[in-house]
């Protein structure tokens, strides 16, 4: 039940109920108000125009003396009964003698022409005007009564004239209030959903979405909570995976270490042996042992890299790299080795249209190392290495050419080709391509980057 009251559904139902109640309530209020007006006015007499006219004439005729005081008193009585009324007295000479609450400017001296104009203007018009002569004959001047015509309207119509605007505005306020509350309700929901969406699409440093703060425990709150729990689980899974990866790396590193330590010892012994004099034929065996150590070392290295590569654990960190520079620096380190082996070395590195390749420099270095190592091991007989750049419409490439006996020829030092498998994996891992063409007079390997088609 508690859950229900926290829910959005409950809130929405409350808003609807309140809206219905408020509208009903407003109608009741309005209804009561009008009934009140009805009952208030129905009992009282609302005089008709004729009744007022007759009464005004009758009382004017019945006045005995026509002093200013008496007329004033007479006006005051009427004013009491009809607060909205205006009255004035014009005497037998046409002078405006007494006035009460005049709504317009009147002349002090009344002429026959003004009289005619006045009567013409007021006939059947607004305000309702009654003109009565004082006393029994027309020699004492006349008194005039002016009443707004709404005095004769029924009370309901009067009320609706006076209060319709308020009722209308009240209804508008109620409707606007309902709209506003509904808007706020949905706006709030929308905001929270957008927030949730934003945290789903924002990535933390670990590549997972960020957790979102749960402030309310309604439907969205529960969704947010579930979302957070999901991220937590993902994080834990990531953590586990990282730990496993770390363990695997450690294992491989330790294995490599443990294999190399005895190798180093063997080398120490062999080196000591080789320093002894008078070895004669044994020297050849020692040299072979020495060469085997180098081989095993290289094989261990390759095996480790291969295992890591296959498991995609070898970290690839691509960035914009000036490849010409990278290859040149690589060659600088290999140059003396080739020089020592009396190789003819040709280097022709011409800048490409774009020297920046998006690659991992350590991977590319590794590829070049592997290729040059292969030349040194399998194509030593050619005593020639050429590294040059090649640009066509389709691709930019580095070309490594030797004059060995080709790959079909079985070299004494041929391994299982694991070195080239590593090259293959790394080249493809960096979205590059490579080609080997090998004949009996040499091998040429091309590392290519295709140009984007415009």
């Amino acid at each position, binding site marked *: 039940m508690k859950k229900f009251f926290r829910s959005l559904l409950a809130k929405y139902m409350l808003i609807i109920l309140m809206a219905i109640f408020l509208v009903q309530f407003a109608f009741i209020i309005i209804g009561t108000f009008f009934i009140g007006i009805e009952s208030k006015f129905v009992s009282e007499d609302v005089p008709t125009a004729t009744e007022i006219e007759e009464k005004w004439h009758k009382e004017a005729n019945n006045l005995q003396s026509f002093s200013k005081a008496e007329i004033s008193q007479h006006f005051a009585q009427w004013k009491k009964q009809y607060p909205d009324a205006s009255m004035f007295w014009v005497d037998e000479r046409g002078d405006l003698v007494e006035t009460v609450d005049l709504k317009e400017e009147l002349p002090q001296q009344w002429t026959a022409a003004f009289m005619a104009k006045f009567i013409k203007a007021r006939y059947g018009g607004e305000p309702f005007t009654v003109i009565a002569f004082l006393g029994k004959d027309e020699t004492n001047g006349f008194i005039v009564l002016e009443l707004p015509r709404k005095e004769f309207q029924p009370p309901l119509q009067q009320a609706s004239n006076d209060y319709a605007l308020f009722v209308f505005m009240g209804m508008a306020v109620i409707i606007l209030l309902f709209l506003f509350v509904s808007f706020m309700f949905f706006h709030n929901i929308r905001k929270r959903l957008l927030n949730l969406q934003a945290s789903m699409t924002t990535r933390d440093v670990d590549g997972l979405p960020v957790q979102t703060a749960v402030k309310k425990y309604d439907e969205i709150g529960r969704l947010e909570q579930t979302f957070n729990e999901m991220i937590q689980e993902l994080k834990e899974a990531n953590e586990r995976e990282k730990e496993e990866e770390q363990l695997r790396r450690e294992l491989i590193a330790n294995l490599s270490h443990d294999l190399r330590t005895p190798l180093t010892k063997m*080398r120490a012994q062999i080196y000591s042996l080789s320093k002894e004099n008078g070895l004669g034929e044994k020297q050849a065996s020692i040299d072979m042992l020495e060469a085997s150590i180098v081989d095993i070392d290289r094989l261990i290295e390759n095996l480790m890299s291969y295992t890591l590569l296959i498991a995609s654990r070898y970290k690839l960190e691509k960035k914009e790299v000036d490849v010409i520079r990278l290859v*040149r620096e690589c060659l*600088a380190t290999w140059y003396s080795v080739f020089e020592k082996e009396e190789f003819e070395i040709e280097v022709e590195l011409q800048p490409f249209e774009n020297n920046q390749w998006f690659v991992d420099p350590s991977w590319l270095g590794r590829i070049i190392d592997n290729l040059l190592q292969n030349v040194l091991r399998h194509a030593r007989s050619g005593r020639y290495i050429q590294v040059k750049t090649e640009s066509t419409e389709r691709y930019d490439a580095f070309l490594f050419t030797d004059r060995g006996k080709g790959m079909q020829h079985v070299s004494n030092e041929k391994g299982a080709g694991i070195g080239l498998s590593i090259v293959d994996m790394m080249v493809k891992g960096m979205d590059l391509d490579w080609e080997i063409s090998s004949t009996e007079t040499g091998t040429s390997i091309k590392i290519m980057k295709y140009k984007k088609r415009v």
Partner: protein
Amino acid sequence: MMVHVLYIEDENEIGSWVKKDLKKRGYEVTWLTSGEGVEQYISTADLVILDVMLPGLDGFSIGKRIKNDNGNVPILMLSARTAIEDKIEGLGFADDYLTKPFHPDELAARVEVLLRRFQKNDELIEIGHLAVYPEDLRIINKKTEEEIQLTGKQYYLFQYFIRHLNQILTKEQLYEGVWGEAYIEGDKTLMVHIRYLREKLEENPAKPKIIETIRGIGYRVKL
């Protein structure tokens, strides 16, 4: 004075072999089997050779500590750990990283390079007809017995070559090493300075022997 090498290695066989070999090459060697006692010898050491897998504190931690306290002592990591991560971590503070199994000649060569780079070696270097005193970079023409004077940038350029003896240096490496700015393709500054340097150093600047041009790659000063 003999160059003092502090060598830390827990493996007995390898340790005694390396110590023997380095001694034979004319170095004074102190060999420790763990990080204990490093403080005692570090003040007199000219170079530290450090294994990674050691009992107690590992080589990385010891190396970092040494580098913190004695920044001008070069450290060479000597390890059977060949993973890129290990090398990167090692080279974060160490000056060189050599993997086992190594050839003693290679170790000796790398030690030489490091000593030269850190100018721990005050031995006279003879390059062709020149005699160079690395400490103050005094250059004597052995044939005429005259001292060769270099101007500012020439001096730094030659110093850079001497610190990287026998290494081939690309235009970019030289320019960035000496001028400390990124090299812009096509910039002729370096070539002009090399030409001036050759005019002073070479017997025949048209056929340079001291500063070799390695076609397509860069330059080298070889012993």
